[in-house]
């Protein structure tokens, strides 16, 4: 399906060095959401020095977890089916006129994309990269302005476009002179317009990629800590060299992240927070994995402080949240609650209902499956113990009618294994076909993704992304999609089949608090630290009492 080299339009996607396990999952979900079909509209291309990836494969997963992806589109589709237009007015025009999909706008939705280049050339060294540009026809096309929607008067003619070349060397520092040296290799382009440092029309980027460690630093650093050059490392060839024109430069700048984008909705500024609030970055990624868009009906059955629900609303969804805990639903005060958080960002109020997910079918009608996305962080007993309706006692006393309104319903502990089984079942029941469930599940290192995740006949697992939190503990973000209609008569069957390995897998997810505590106890120095903490608590308590006494005496 790959078109011959001259006929390809290549995009280089640079990803941030975070949530590495999420890169491909998020990218694929966002492409699919915008009707950009992998394998049909575009293909992944292997990076230089990446022997593990077969060219043109759909399931491109760079085994070495490099922060780059190359997407190839047939040239004929640019300007017709797809556009890389960067002008706001033209963008409006395009949207209403045709079904043109703007690649810049679409990809901008990825939280983990750092920048996107129109790739002019690449290779495993600077010279190969230059050679690759010379043999491509990208420059010719740029001159002809073919993909710049030359129809509009807004796009500047080639001759007057201001430009600059930025040198981006991963994990390595090069002096100004060295950088200038690299720049001079591209003088053959003979770009006619003026060089402009601030906001040029075209910003070109030369990227020199090297092996990076998990922290984002170079595996073979060029300089020692004392800033001395390490000759062996300096002589090492790069992993790859890329050269291209930054897309979306006008609207998004060189760095697509940050600035005026959704990333500004960090937790720090939010009015109502709790110990369970999900960090906004992960929530944004989750809403992408769930393909939430304008008019989507999004549901969080364990809404808590509403942090995840908020990000779905930011994406334009109609937000619906339930929780069994009335206190958390109502918030701390008039100004500190879920609704005030939504108001803070100018979002319409979410629908909130106090209900119990374990008995969802008793609360809500089953007629039409209508949720587009269920995005949630279920309670798994670490920061908030889960509860469900029902009495802990064996004998249940009847509640008299006159007490009905004031009676505080009893709740009992809700085992994590049941939480997950019920969640999947509610999802299978209420999602429309193709709708997605995205949830987070804590897991220790001994978790087997194939066997230990909860299952449901009506849902297929799309992706599992791992995020390490501490040495022992991490969490997995699981994305599932509804592929089969729900059969009410099979409810018990569905619930019983949730855990493939039965009790054993459920156990791995449950009781994590106890297991963490066990692990902590085994560590050396635990006894001393625990004793020290106890003394500290006592001291603080005494100090408070003293302060109170003194205040009273005054």
């Amino acid at each position, binding site marked *: 399906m790959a078109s011959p080299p001259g006929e390809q339009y290549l995009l280089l996607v640079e990803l941030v060095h975070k949530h590495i396990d999420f890169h491909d999952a998020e990218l694929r979900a966002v492409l699919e959401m915008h009707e950009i079909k992998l394998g049909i509209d575009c293909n992944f291309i292997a990076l230089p020095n990446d022997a593990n990836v077969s060219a043109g494969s759909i399931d491109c997963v760079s085994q070495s977890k490099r922060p780059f992806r190359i997407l190839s589109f047939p040239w004929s589709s640019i300007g017709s089916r797809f556009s890389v237009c960067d002008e706001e007015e033209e963008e409006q025009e395009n949207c209403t006129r045709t079904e043109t999909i703007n690649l810049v706008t679409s990809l901008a939705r990825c939280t983990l994309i750092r920048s996107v280049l129109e790739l002019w050339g690449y290779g495993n060294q600077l010279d190969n990269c230059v050679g690759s540009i010379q043999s491509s026809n990208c420059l010719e096309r740029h001159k002809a302005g073919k993909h710049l929607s030359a129809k509009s008067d807004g796009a500047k003619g080639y001759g007057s476009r201001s430009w600059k070349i930025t040198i981006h060397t991963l994990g390595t520092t090069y002096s100004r002179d060295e950088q200038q040296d690299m720049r001079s290799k591209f003088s053959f382009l003979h770009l006619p317009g003026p060089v402009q440092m601030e906001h040029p029309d075209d910003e070109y980027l030369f990227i020199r990629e090297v092996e990076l460690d998990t922290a984002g630093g170079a595996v073979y650093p060029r300089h020692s800590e004392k800033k001395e050059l390490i000759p062996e490392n300096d002589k090492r060839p790069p992993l790859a060299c890329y050269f291209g024109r930054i897309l979306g430069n006008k609207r998004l700048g060189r760095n697509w992240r940050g600035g005026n984008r959704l990333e500004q909705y960090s937790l720090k500024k939010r009015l109502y927070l709790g110990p369970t609030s999900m960090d906004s970055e992960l929530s944004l990624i989750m809403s992408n994995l769930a393909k939430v868009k304008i008019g989507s009906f999004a549901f969080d059955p364990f809404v808590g402080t509403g942090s995840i629900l908020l990000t779905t609303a930011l994406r334009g969804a109609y937000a619906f949240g339930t929780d069994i805990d009335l206190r958390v639903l109502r918030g701390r005060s008039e100004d500190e609650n879920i609704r005030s958080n939504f108001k803070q960002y100018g979002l319409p109020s979410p629908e909130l209902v106090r209900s119990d997910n374990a008995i969802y079918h008793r609360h809500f009608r089953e007629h039409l499956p209508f949720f587009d996305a269920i995005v949630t962080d279920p309670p798994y007993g670490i920061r908030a113990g889960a509860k469900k309706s029902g009495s802990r006692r064996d004998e249940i006393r009847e509640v008299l009618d006159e007490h009905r*309104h004031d009676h505080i319903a009893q709740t009992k502990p809700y085992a994590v294994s049941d939480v997950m089984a019920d969640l999947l079942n509610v999802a299978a029941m209420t999602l429309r076909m193709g709708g997605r469930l995205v949830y987070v599940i804590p897991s220790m290192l001994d978790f087997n993704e194939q066997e230990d995740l909860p299952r449901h006949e009506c849902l297929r697992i799309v992706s599992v992304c791992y995020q390490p939190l501490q040495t022992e503990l991490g969490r997995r973000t699981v994305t599932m999609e509804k592929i089969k209609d729900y059969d009410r008569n099979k409810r018990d069957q569905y619930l019983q089949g949730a855990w493939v390995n039965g009790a054993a897998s459920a156990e791995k997810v449950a009781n994590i608090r106890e297991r963490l505590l066990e692990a902590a106890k085994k560590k050396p120095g635990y006894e001393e630290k625990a004793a020290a903490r106890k003394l500290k608590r006592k001291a603080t308590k005494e100090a408070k009492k003293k302060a109170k006494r003194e205040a009273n005496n005054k």
Partner: protein
Amino acid sequence: MHYDIQTSDRTEKGYPLDIEVTTLKYEESSINREFILKLLPKVNYPALYSAVSQVCPHCTEHSLPELPEHLDTSDEAISNLDEDTIGKLHTWLLDVYLVEGMLVCPDTGRKFPVKDCIPNMILHEDEI
């Protein structure tokens, strides 16, 4: 608006719930046509209409628009809806809040309290 998806317990006939109004709130917000059009297919219109009819008599402060008794919510009809109808739907779907009141099961008579816009649907231990 979520009333149209709520049901009472155990009974087949426990939907839709009847509404007893104590306090209403009306907060105007900007209309997003695309959003309403996407939302409409998921709404059970007769239930919405019945909810609106029950709530309407209580809106003394604001003059809220009337909704037509029947509305064709098929895909074709939806894309042809005029601005006026969209506006009315928007008002009722998104801008009117039941701040305090009761949701009553039409079958068993069980009342679910609504306070601060949040309905409390929790079943008591003897109802499980």
